[in-house]
């Protein structure tokens, strides 16, 4: 809890950036891993002494205890969803593997939900469909993550492709999944941008009105397209997914985006997402989010509304809890009964 607000982090990842996980059959694999690490080293905020140590090895496979410490012991987070990243381009066991995400949820079922992930271009559509059955039926996935922009154009696919994408969504629906999630925008390296545009989600959002579509990273640089889609489609939600990391670099831009989101989409459809572990611990970003304001000149000049405590409460936890069927009051009681492993739980707001 931060300032008595329940925090349900939409997205954390137990990444595997270790050298043994790098594909040996792809010359672009090791440089891509190094590029990603260099990128996140720049965006990550300081605040966790262990991670601020220059000798800390980020090219690692994240394990459950380290992740729990980062997200729950060092940050005022109450619940989180750990998400597979089915990016197979450069990693043998994917960028954020199925097994490490599942291990996190299995070790801490009261606090962590497992979001599986599949890709029809990995071993074909039938294998992806079997994987949905396995990840939902056997591993207990509550949601599924998709990544349809890849390094090779032949590996890319569109969400509105009725031959490839729709069977995935139909199978997910048949297994009881109601929340589908998509990495959009934010290409890694030299991928073609168009596969990371959110415009291909309009068809599925229209054709699967009983499913909810969560788009990550505000689909930047496709912000205006994303805004229009989220404003028009009642079943499209936006995950901030690491977005607050930019606040240190460009606070004005973050205020501008947030103000426009509140004006056009509303705080009912925005989800908090820290993107730990590569973005670092969630604590400093949570503190920044509690303090962010929409400045007067943006309120006057662009008509953006001021962010309120209600907005923060919805964004930080209520919206995702509603989507995932979590009763916050019941969950608070359940978590309060757990052994005291989170020193921040009783302390309320923390400063990193």
């Amino acid at each position, binding site marked *: 809890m931060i300032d008595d607000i329940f925090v349900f982090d939409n997205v954390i990842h137990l990444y595997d950036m270790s050298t043994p996980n790098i594909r040996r059959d792809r010359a672009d694999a090791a440089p891509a891993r190094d590029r990603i690490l260099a990128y996140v080293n720049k965006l990550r905020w300081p605040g966790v002494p262990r991670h601020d140590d220059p000798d800390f090895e980020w090219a690692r496979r994240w394990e459950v205890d380290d992740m729990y410490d980062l997200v729950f012991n060092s940050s005022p987070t109450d619940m989180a969803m750990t998400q597979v990243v089915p990016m197979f381009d450069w990693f043998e066991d994917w960028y954020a593997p199925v097994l490490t995400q599942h291990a996190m949820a299995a070790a801490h079922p009261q606090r962590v939900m497992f979001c599986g992930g599949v890709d029809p271009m990995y071993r074909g559509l039938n294998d992806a469909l079997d994987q949905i059955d396995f990840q939902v039926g056997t591993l207990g996935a509550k949601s599924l993550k998709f990544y349809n922009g890849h390094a090779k154009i032949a590996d890319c696919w569109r969400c509105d492709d009725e031959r490839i994408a729709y069977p995935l969504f139909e199978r997910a629906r048949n297994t009881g999944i109601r929340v589908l999630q998509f990495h959009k925008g934010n290409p890694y390296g030299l991928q073609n941008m168009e596969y990371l545009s959110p415009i291909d989600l309009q068809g599925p959002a229209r054709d699967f009105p009983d499913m909810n579509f969560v788009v990550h990273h505000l689909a930047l640089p496709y912000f205006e397209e994303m805004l229009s889609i989220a*404003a028009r489609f009642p079943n499209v939600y936006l995950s901030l997914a690491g977005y607050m990391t930019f606040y240190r670099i460009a606070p004005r831009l973050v205020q501008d985006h947030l103000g426009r989101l509140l*004006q*056009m989409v509303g705080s009912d459809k925005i989800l908090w997402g820290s993107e730990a572990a590569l973005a670092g611990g969630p604590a400093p970003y949570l503190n920044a989010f509690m303090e962010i304001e929409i400045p*007067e000149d943006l*309120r*006057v000049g662009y*008509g953006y509304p*001021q962010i309120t405590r209600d907005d923060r409460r919805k964004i930080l936890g209520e919206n995702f809890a509603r989507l995932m069927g979590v009763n916050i009051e019941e969950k608070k009681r359940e978590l309060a009964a757990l052994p005291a492993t989170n020193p921040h739980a009783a302390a309320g707001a923390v400063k990193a």
Partner: protein
Amino acid sequence: MSAERKAVDQTVDALSKMIRAHAGGLELIDLSADGVVTVKYTGMCAGCQYRPVTTASSVRPALLAVAGVTDVVVLGTRISAEAEARLAQELAPYAVQARVTRIVQRSAWSDS
């Protein structure tokens, strides 16, 4: 005094009929015990950049004219207090709010 559900329903229906001119509509989501009405735009109005204008000129004044309604919340769109004041000032000379409220009330009564 609490707002009557029937009066709120009729007002939202009357507003929705007017908004059909925009190929859109208005839907009642909630009426709270303390008189806060929550609505959302549908059709072409969902996601429209000009929702705040229709809200300020028609939806808000017509619903606030219903006895017991204390506030109007529109899901998915909100503008700053400064922008609301600017809109109100610009609309004032045309008496748009009063005219819309009168039309909506007449339409709601004729349906009841």
